[in-house]
């Protein structure tokens, strides 16, 4: 319990990134951060929100330390005490978790006053999670300015900027396939992986990241996301549990939602046909294997509703258009957590993939971007990010630190992650190389198959 006595308010109190939901970050001696979830009852309209929150934050931190409620006028003292107690309990749990680690060095913010980093990502709830977990602490810690931009993926814009010699994006969140390609085609800066901070438990970065995810020399992975399938537990009394159920119209009749792309679908089809995750790409590399995958798809073709945008599948489920649908796990989680939809994810046969940071070749603020990259891929930042959306951190040392859902303190994030042990049983990593080699052919075949 060495953390308990060390629990103090940080020096730079004014810069604490409190957020609207009433989350209370606090530091303890080792310089590590933990999150204490704290619900604020009411805000007087017109009052400076930040000041109010800082006050409440300070009060509750004190309360935590002394074990008594130091109540703001607007807070019921008893309630504040209860909440403070709950917060302390939670802090203890987090500290216990971190106690099991060896307590190595973590990322130290350099002073970057006057610098600026343009961070480009996919927008929506995903960017929000990054802003909360990466941008805000980074701004507070370094004094740098962070500009957040959205894009829709693909390398077209990066290519245009690099070729024009006017690179305005400093760090970009890309898919694995684009990361590899950007690297191959000289669109991204190479990154010295040894400069990445050690894990919170002292593990060197090279060993801390999930095996094989640091292979692209220009890109550092941040999250694991996954294509899974989900169903609405209120609309059906049948409970699918395996990927085979998705392709079984006899036992599980009803429409299916699938992404209009061969990617992930062919893999899932083979896994449903009994191919083990380890052999999927070997089988798919043969013509017979491709035929076999399409034969599985043929079984449900007439009942498939095809989607293209990630926002569609939760909508399809909610509208009752489909019985079950493939989806990105974060989207389903978001519908469950933020909109209270009764959706269930089936993790069996999930196909997981990575999102990574790349720094475009010739980025204007390369050094600051590199600092941002280092901080945002540190153990704590990755863990923080995972409390906002259910995409798993790529560092193994982050997993024990993953807290609960930011706006619902009673919703544990750990089990929502693709990488959680109970979800990871039959999981397949999307093979970028296979798709780079075969996507032209398989796309044509898939579309021809669709049209016939």
């Amino acid at each position, binding site marked *: 319990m060495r953390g308990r006595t060390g629990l103090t308010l940080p020096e730079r109190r004014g810069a604490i990134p409190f957020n609207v939901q009433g989350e209370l970050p606090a530091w303890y001696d080792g310089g590590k951060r933990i999150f204490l979830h704290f619900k604020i009852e009411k805000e007087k309209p017109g009052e400076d929100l930040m000041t109010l929150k800082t006050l409440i934050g300070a009060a509750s931190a004190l309360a935590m330390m002394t074990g008594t409620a130091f109540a703001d006028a607007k807070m019921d003292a008893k309630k504040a005490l209860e909440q403070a107690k709950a917060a302390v309990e939670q802090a203890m749990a987090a500290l216990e978790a971190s106690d099991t680690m060896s307590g190595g060095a973590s990322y130290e913010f350099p002073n970057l006053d006057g610098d600026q980093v343009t961070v480009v990502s996919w927008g929506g709830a995903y960017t929000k999670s990054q802003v909360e977990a990466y941008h805000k602490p980074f701004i507070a810690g370094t004094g740098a300015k962070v500009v957040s931009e959205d894009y829709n993926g693909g390398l*077209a814009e990066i290519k245009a900027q690099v070729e024009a010699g006017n690179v305005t994006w400093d760090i970009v969140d890309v898919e694995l396939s684009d990361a590899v390609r950007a690297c191959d085609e000289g669109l991204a800066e190479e990154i010295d992986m040894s400069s990445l901070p050690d894990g919170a438990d002292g593990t060197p970065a090279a060993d801390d990241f999930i095996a094989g995810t640091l292979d692209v020399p220009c890109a550092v992975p941040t999250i694991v996301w996954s294509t899974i399938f989900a169903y609405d537990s209120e609309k059906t009394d049948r409970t699918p549990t395996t990927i085979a159920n998705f392709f079984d119209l006899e036992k599980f009749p009803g429409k299916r939602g699938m992404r209009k792309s061969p990617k992930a679908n062919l893999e899932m089809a083979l896994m449903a046909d009994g191919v083990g995750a380890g052999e999927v790409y070997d089988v798919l590399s043969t013509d017979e294997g491709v035929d076999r995958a399409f034969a599985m798809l043929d079984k449900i073709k007439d009942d498939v509703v095809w989607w293209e945008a990630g926002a569609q599948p939760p909508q399809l489920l909610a509208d009752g*258009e489909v019985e079950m649908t493939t989806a990105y796990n974060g989207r389903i989680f978001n519908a469950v957590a933020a909109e209270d939809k009764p959706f269930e994810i089936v993790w069996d046969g999930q196909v997981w993939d990575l999102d990574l940071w790349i720094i475009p070749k010739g980025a204007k603020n390369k050094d600051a971007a590199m600092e941002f990259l280092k901080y945002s891929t540190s153990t704590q930042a990755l863990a923080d990010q995972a409390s906002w959306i259910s995409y798993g951190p790529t560092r193994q040392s982050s997993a024990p630190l993953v807290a609960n859902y930011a706006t619902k303190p009673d919703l544990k994030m750990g089990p929502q992650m693709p990488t959680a042990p109970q979800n990871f049983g039959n999981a397949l990593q999307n093979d970028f190389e296979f798709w780079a080699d075969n996507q032209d052919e398989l796309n044509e075949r898939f579309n021809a198959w669709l049209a016939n």
Partner: protein
Amino acid sequence: MTDATANQGPDGLLLATDGTPLKAKLRQSMKASRRRAFGLVLPLLLFVLASFVIPIIMLLWTGVSNDTYAANMPRSAPLMRAWDGSSQPTEAMAEAMVLDMIDARKAKTIGKVASRVNREQSGTRSLYTKSARRAAKMEPPFLDALVKADKDWADIETWRATKIAATSLTPAYYAAALDYKYTADGEFVEQDEVRQIHVQLFWKTIWVSGAVMLFCLLLGYPVAYLLSHLPAKKANLLMILVLLPFWTSLLVRTTAWIAMLQSQGVLNDIFVWLGITGDEQRFSLIYNMTGTLIAMTHILLPFMILPIYSVMRAIPPSHVRAAKSLGATNWTAFWRVYFPATIPGIGAGGLLVFILSIGYYITPALVGGQDGQLISNFIAYHMQRSLNWSLAAALGGILLAIVLVLYWLYDRIVGIDNMKLG
């Protein structure tokens, strides 16, 4: 006429008062004004040239030319082109290949080269990138070294694919756009049946565009008629309703369609309530061809209504009155007098809707389900995702040719002067 004869030159030409031939004088006096007129249109001409003509020429050019390989593998490319495509690959070819790979890896262009060859044969992308990684350490004989690095180099098909990629000017993309394969022997063979997709999509695109045009006409004509016959105040209100889809973002519109059309949607609820269909047999109005047609008709309707409306507005009401006073029934007056006068608007609207719908792809993709895939989706896919711009250009070139043929047909049947946009 005495003056005229007096001013006649020896060769019978009319002369101006100063003795020069009148025609020459006229030309001279016209020159200045012609030059000024040209100066006035010059900026537009340059703009059209830069923004329209040159891009189209470049598009057509991209469709037959791709020098990715030749530019980045300068030693290997000429040897590959010279190779007959059937004999054993030579050591010289292998050496050039390895040396080029070392350079290309340094220059970070090996990825582009690999993608280019991969288009000719799936699987060669990783073969190239892997081999390039090891190329620096290879020692002669290079052919053996390559095969040792990956046994696929022993497969002559790898080299044949490379030979096709090494040729910069090639009909391969147009062939691919028409579901044919251009082989290393310079022959065209039909694409595997399971991969034939483009021709079918071209037909489907034309079919969908035609159907959308027809629906727009059937729905838009009466609306345009109503609009042109209402008092200005009411007409303006109705016009706003007509133009509403223009002012709504694609996402809002799509969401609205989904809410309306899905099986638990408003329309189906109404059908069930009216007893047109049972609760269990709701109509599939979205994520299929019906959805595509409904959504595209909705968004393109204004393009049909506006030209027809403006033509109708210009038709004097006295024409129909004249027809009636001459003994024509309402229908005859409409069909023989009013309708022919609206044909220019129908022609303009029809052509506009048709050409626009040929290029539509996001909307059908969102609401069309598996039927929503049109040829433009493929062009966009190759432009944005696979970065296979040459194939995109070839598909675009064919689409352009189809539009031109239709335009020509339209000119033959209706007459291009007979088109009015307003």
